[in-house]
């Protein structure tokens, strides 16, 4: 029977139509009745649907009768579609034997097409290239087919051309999966080893681990053991994705399914961990497990002090489903009590921020993101800091090291110059270039992460009219001449506005930040001086003039309610500001630094 199993995933650059294709496959196999079809079933979070990307991987089992008349079990494993989740993608790929590589017929090959393709090749997957969106008027499927041919060596005319949106040619994909993707290799007799490639938290069943059985069998009666986290448990239930959770009596090697673990936190059941039997454990865990390491840090503070408890609850709940989110208590002079949070990357941070605001209805301030620095002190000690406020005084510091990334930018060749310029401005170092397809260049650089997380992606997009795409990986820590830039508002240093920057940029950034803050800080009842300060001297200053006039005109026809509403609105806007000393500072000011680069 297992020779009728195919485990595969779909990989693509953002917006190339991965989720739409998944939907079509589900409909085509009657896994989901048309009437139950919500757009993009696999992306269950609203936020994903809105951003058009997949945040959580997911899986579904489809039953399909092929043209050869036989019934096949197809397990589709969805992969997260963003650069911050590279590790999660690699684990999901590890659970498959094949990958459908979707390329947009008008956009062509992009950075994440390449990044995901390389990941899939590393995982030894059979690649089935597909060109999507051929219904668009801007589609150029033949050119894109040539790009793919030069990339993969698959003959251009053999590449399936589809429109997932219109349902055109989609069935060909299923036939190709059956024909080309090898069935899993089976060893039912070995001790159980199953790869965890995703999980979610369920209030009744605990953490539900998404697994691919590599060897052995699993039944709900077995006592289980997670080899990396050490957790031991008896499952609440074992089952498959139909796509709803459908309990079964047994899962065998090669199959994809889930184990409801009853565990209370996803930290005990991380992606990449190996599930085995507690009674008859495997000798060795599956390779490739990594503990998620946050790379980007920011303070999250409630606008209203009394929301502190709610923020804590919300972060706890988010962490139930997100093992890569870390947080710890932080206090700021300016913002009082909040949390220092660690994220996989900028995109991960944005998602958490939006979820706190939208799903938990919290008014929050997110401070300027920072990376984790290694500070070597004169006495030889090394201090790791992820917030500028923690930087020791300049006299005590021997050197500061910061994380460097290898970044891969994929862009039409016409934007070569502007991309080079941007990277150079951000202290980047050119490494190499490659032309994987005609008219497209892949540029490899090394760049400090601190430069990457501040508005780099937006800048890249605007300089290349949205055509460039980006992928990045950590390489190492390197030392550089870094200083702390402090901001004084009304003669008080505002710790949440401080940042660590390169000494050569201190003057320019200090000036830019002050002029930005001057516009963002509303006029108060008194004049407010603001200053930027680095290495013991003031490098820029400005004054926010006192407010002179703020009064409503007449109340015509006795419309008191309207007047009151306007005042209430104004008052509410005020509440969203943070009192620092006796100055009201709006939330935007705390990430003004993000918008500094007008370049």
């Amino acid at each position, binding site marked *: 029977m297992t020779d009728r199993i195919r485990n595969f995933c779909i990989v693509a650059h953002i917006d190339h139509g991965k989720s739409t294709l998944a939907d079509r496959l589900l409909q085509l196999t009657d896994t989901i009745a048309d009437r139950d079809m919500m757009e993009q079933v696999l992306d269950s979070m609203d936020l994903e649907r809105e951003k058009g990307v997949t945040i959580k991987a997911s899986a579904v089992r489809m039953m399909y009768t092929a043209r050869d008349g036989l019934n096949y079990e197809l397990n589709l494993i969805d992969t997260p579609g963003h650069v911050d989740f590279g590790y999660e993608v690699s684990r999901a790929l590890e659970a498959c034997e094949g990958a459908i590589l979707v390329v947009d017929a008008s956009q062509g090959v992009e950075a994440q097409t390449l990044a995901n393709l390389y990941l899939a090749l590393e995982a030894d997957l059979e690649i089935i290239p597909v060109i999507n969106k051929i219904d668009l008027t801007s589609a150029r499927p033949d050119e894109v087919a040539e790009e793919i041919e030069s990339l993969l060596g698959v003959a251009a005319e053999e590449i399936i051309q589809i429109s997932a949106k219109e349902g055109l040619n989609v069935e060909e994909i299923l036939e190709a999966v059956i024909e080309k993707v090898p069935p899993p290799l089976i060893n039912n007799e070995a001790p159980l080893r199953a790869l965890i490639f995703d999980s979610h938290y369920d209030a009744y069943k605990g953490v539900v681990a998404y697994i691919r059985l590599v060897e052995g069998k699993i039944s709900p009666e077995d006592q289980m053991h997670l080899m990396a986290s050490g957790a031991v448990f008896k499952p609440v239930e074992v089952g498959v994705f139909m796509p709803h959770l459908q309990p079964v009596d047994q899962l065998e090697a090669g199959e994809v399914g889930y184990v409801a673990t009853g565990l209370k936190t996803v930290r005990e059941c991380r992606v990449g961990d190996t599930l085995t039997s507690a009674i008859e454990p495997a000798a060795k865990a599956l390779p490739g497990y990594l503990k998620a390491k946050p790379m980007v840090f920011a303070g999250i503070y409630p606008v209203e002090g009394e929301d502190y408890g709610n923020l804590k609850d919300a972060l706890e709940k988010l962490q139930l489903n997100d093992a890569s989110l870390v947080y710890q208590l932080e206090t700021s002079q300016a913002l009082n009590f909040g949390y220092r949070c660690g994220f996989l990357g900028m995109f991960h941070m944005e998602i958490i921020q939006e979820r706190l605001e939208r799903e938990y209805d919290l008014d929050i301030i997110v401070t300027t993101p920072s990376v984790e620095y290694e500070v070597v002190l004169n006495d030889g000690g090394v201090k790791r800091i992820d917030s500028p406020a923690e930087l020791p005084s300049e006299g005590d510091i021997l050197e500061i090291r910061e994380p460097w990334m290898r970044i891969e930018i994929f862009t039409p060749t016409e934007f070569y110059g502007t991309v080079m310029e941007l990277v150079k401005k951000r202290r980047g170092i050119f490494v190499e270039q490659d032309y994987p397809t005609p008219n497209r260049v892949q540029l490899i650089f090394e760049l400090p992460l601190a430069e990457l997380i501040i508005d780099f992606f937006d800048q890249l997009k605007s300089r290349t009219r949205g055509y460039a795409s980006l992928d990045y990986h950590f390489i190492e820590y390197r030392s550089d001449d870094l200083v702390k830039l402090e901001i004084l508002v009304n003669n008080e240093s505002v710790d949440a506005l401080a940042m660590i920057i390169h000494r050569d940029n201190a003057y320019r950034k200090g000036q830019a930040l002050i002029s930005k803050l001057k516009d963002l800080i509303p006029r108060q009842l008194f004049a407010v001086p603001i200053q930027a300060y680095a290495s013991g001297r003031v490098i820029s200053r400005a004054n926010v003039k006192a407010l002179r006039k703020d*009064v*409503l*005109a007449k*109340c*015509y*026809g006795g419309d*008191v*309610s309207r007047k*009151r509403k306007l*005042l209430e609105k104004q008052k509410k806007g005020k509440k969203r500001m943070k009192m620092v000393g006796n100055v009201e500072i709006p939330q935007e000011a705390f990430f003004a630094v993000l918008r500094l680069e007008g370049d």
Partner: protein
Amino acid sequence: MKSHSVYLHIPFCRHLCSYCDFNTYAGLEEHIPAYIQALCTEIEFVAEYCEQQIPVHTIFIGGGTPSILPVREFGKIFQTISRVFDIQEHVEITIEANPGRLSYGYLKSLRDLGINRLSLGMQSAIPEELRLLDRQHDNYRTEKAVNDARRAGFGNINLDLIFGIPDQTPLSWQMTMDLALSLNPDHFSLYSLSIEPGTPLNDWLGEGLISEPDSDIAAEMYELAEARLHEHGYQQYEISNWARKGDGLGLMSCQHNLQYWRNLPYLGFGAGAHGYAGENRTVNVSRPDRYIEKLLSSEVDSSQNDISYPSTPATTRVTVISQAEEIKETMMMGLRLTGEGISRREFHSRFGTSLEEVYGGEIEELLGLGLLEWDQVTSERLRLTPKGRLLGNQVFQRFI
């Protein structure tokens, strides 16, 4: 029963001005007779709630452009009002009018009907500014309207002026003030222009055709006007209003607007009109055709049962004002009164609790900021300081 004010809304204009976001419509004049019929029906409807006649001491006919109505329509309105309400002896009856199309004869007829206060939308004396505001008059018309009104027997005339107009300068504002002062009105209302969404002015701003008025310059104009008006013997009694002393009768302030600012009851009739009586704030349907339909269609009687004073079939929203909200609104409106402000004693007798008990902290803070003060003679009245008058919102916010 407390004496009430009556507001009548006339939502018709020949032409809409570029800054106007009031509830008014151009080109619907054919509906006027039906509208006035509906208005009278609504007035009767409210009167029927009460066993005794409601005492009324002010009537304000606003718009829109009330002076668009033929005299006979006013005749119908006043016939109804004087039949169903108990009109007080010194009733103040105001009508708003555009200077553009007034004639002596028309004004005389209005005066004969009992209307005794005329509020003229002069807005500016500068032709460029009038053109930008898309007003349909000039200075000659304004002067003539004032003179004709005096001749017709209007002893109480107000001029509305607007400052903070795009490209207006302190000098041009001073010229407007000078011309207005030369007309010797009894009352001034000075409004700072606010550009509202949905108005042509807002569109022009969006298209970059005009520049956003500078609020610092507007503040300067306000202070300039304060000084000028003081020199000429006008006394400020509200953030935007000044009046001169009458013949031994005290300040000629607008009694109708005082009713709003003191948060006392008023009845609002007409499309989009607001009322406040018996703990309820009411709002009428905005569109004149819907208003007419609601009042003149046959279903009126059936819907009567489940609505309460002072709602009518034209009411679309009723908000019950709790005492806590009444206190907030009393502060927010009362502090606009630059002379009388909020009286400690009146507050206590109205709400049964002291001003300090409810707002001790806020008052302390605002006194400290120099935005509020107690009157120097009796320390009985809390009011805005001269600085506070320009920063009223900063003050009112703290009381709501």
